[in-house]
């Protein structure tokens, strides 16, 4: 089995937001929910760079560790998923997540949160693969169809890579060696406690 990861090459990201749009369209994500977003650092200044960020599917995921109802599980491909039928919308995963990945629809009184929603690595949820119920709750299950997440597949500059950690790290290494520079695999040390060594 592969160890699925995302890798963002910030020297290539042009902040076109196609990954965000692709994700929203493929998974029919409701208004106000952003499973993936592009953050621009040093906007308008020299050294500006953009990073597309979503759930990184961490090793020893913090969301999974703090969930009061233990609704998270890790698949054989090391994708971190959750069961929306068990989620109570307490918001603890958002406090623990280093990447701000969990999202909540706002329902009812005060700041009552609905069931948490986040990037599934286009791998659906605990329902039957590619069933109607799975699509409504979690969106597309491209992994079950033998495809990779659409955000990375759509990326025009191939800044965003998704797939087996070993394979995408090798692609990145070759890039860095060929062009002579690189600013590292964003979030890897936080998510996977490792970085891409050249």
């Amino acid at each position, binding site marked *: 089995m592969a160890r699925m990861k995302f890798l963002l090459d910030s020297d290539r990201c042009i902040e076109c937001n196609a990954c965000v749009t692709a994700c929203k369209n493929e998974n029919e994500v409701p208004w106000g929910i952003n499973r993936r977003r592009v953050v621009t650092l040093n906007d308008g200044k020299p*050294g500006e760079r953009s990073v597309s960020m979503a759930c990184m599917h961490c090793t020893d995921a913090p969301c999974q560790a703090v969930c009061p109802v233990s609704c998270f599980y890790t698949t054989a491909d090391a994708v971190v998923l959750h069961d929306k039928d068990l989620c109570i919308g307490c918001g603890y995963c958002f406090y623990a997540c*280093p990447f701000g990945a969990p999202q909540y629809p706002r329902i009812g009184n005060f700041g009552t949160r609905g069931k948490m929603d986040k990037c599934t690595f286009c791998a659906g949820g605990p329902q039957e693969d590619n069933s109607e119920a799975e699509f409504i709750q979690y969106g597309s299950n491209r992994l079950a169809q033998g495809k990779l997440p659409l955000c990375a597949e759509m990326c025009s500059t191939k800044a965003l890579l998704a797939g087996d950690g070993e394979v995408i790290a090798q692609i990145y290494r070759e890039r860095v060696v060929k062009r002579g520079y690189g600013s*590292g695999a964003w979030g890897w040390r936080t998510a996977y406690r490792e970085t891409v060594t050249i």
Partner: protein
Amino acid sequence: MSIRILLLFAALLAGTPAFAQQQPSGTPPLADELAIQALLQGNTVHGRVTIPDQRAANLIQPQGREWREFHNVTLAWVGGIAVVGMLVLLTAFYLIRGRIPIQGGRSGRTILRFDLFERTNHWMVASCFIVLALSGLNLTFGRHVLLPLIGPSAFTTVTEIGKYAHNFLAFPFTLGLLFMLLLWAKDNIPNGNDIRWLKAGGGLVGHGEPPSGRFNAGQKGIFWITVLGGALVAASGYMLIFPFFFTDIQGMQLSHMLHSIPAVLLIAVMLAHIYIGTIGMDGAVEAMTTGQVDLNWAKQHHNLWVEQELAKGRGATPPVRAKPTGGD
């Protein structure tokens, strides 16, 4: 802030082609996220986003890891020791000391200790507190204790009902605390008697209970812990009920810490309060049920207050139509 941006800029420059071209064959310099994070001194990596949700502009918040450590380790240990430790202490106290009896037995005559409004308010706060405490403890310990017993689906139902109850009961709980402060603050101002009471161990350990007014030093302690601790728990709780309305992610994490630690300590203190008010002391529970306590109980534990009350009775002007003593 501008210094940090400059440093970040310097770190990013280290990875630019101009620098790398000087050593094309060697290993290229790598200004990776760790170097940048180190320059940010462990602070949030923050940028700009084109979506309305500005919380999304935080790229990485390393503080989440500290909060995880707090929630899973610190809170679990502090809460576990406070609650289980208090239960062990109370059991030991009961086995050693037993139930504290009324000296000289019951007199059969009673005196009003708490009026109907005081009692109603007490039970409103108490019933809210019990539900708030159980649903709160369930959020921290339920997955280890209750989840294996009743299964994930039933546990989610219980926890979700608990979450709604926790949110809504926060309001009557706070209101009741405010009433308590207005009703009882004047009788809970510390004075010299409290020092004597504390020195003598309050009659809980050893023998002979020092004189005290309406409330003794122990009760005054419970009162101020409830009111001030409750105020802290309520204030931080409202920050959590209205997420991100008043504060950002770090503020939310801090609110959770300032909510949960005082809350588990309050639970431990309330266990002691419940113990001494029911099984721990004969004649105590009536004060909050009928409101009428036995005169001997009152003289034993609150002699100064009894004197005051009786003096009020003696000094009171009888109604005009009341018959004089021995008039019939």
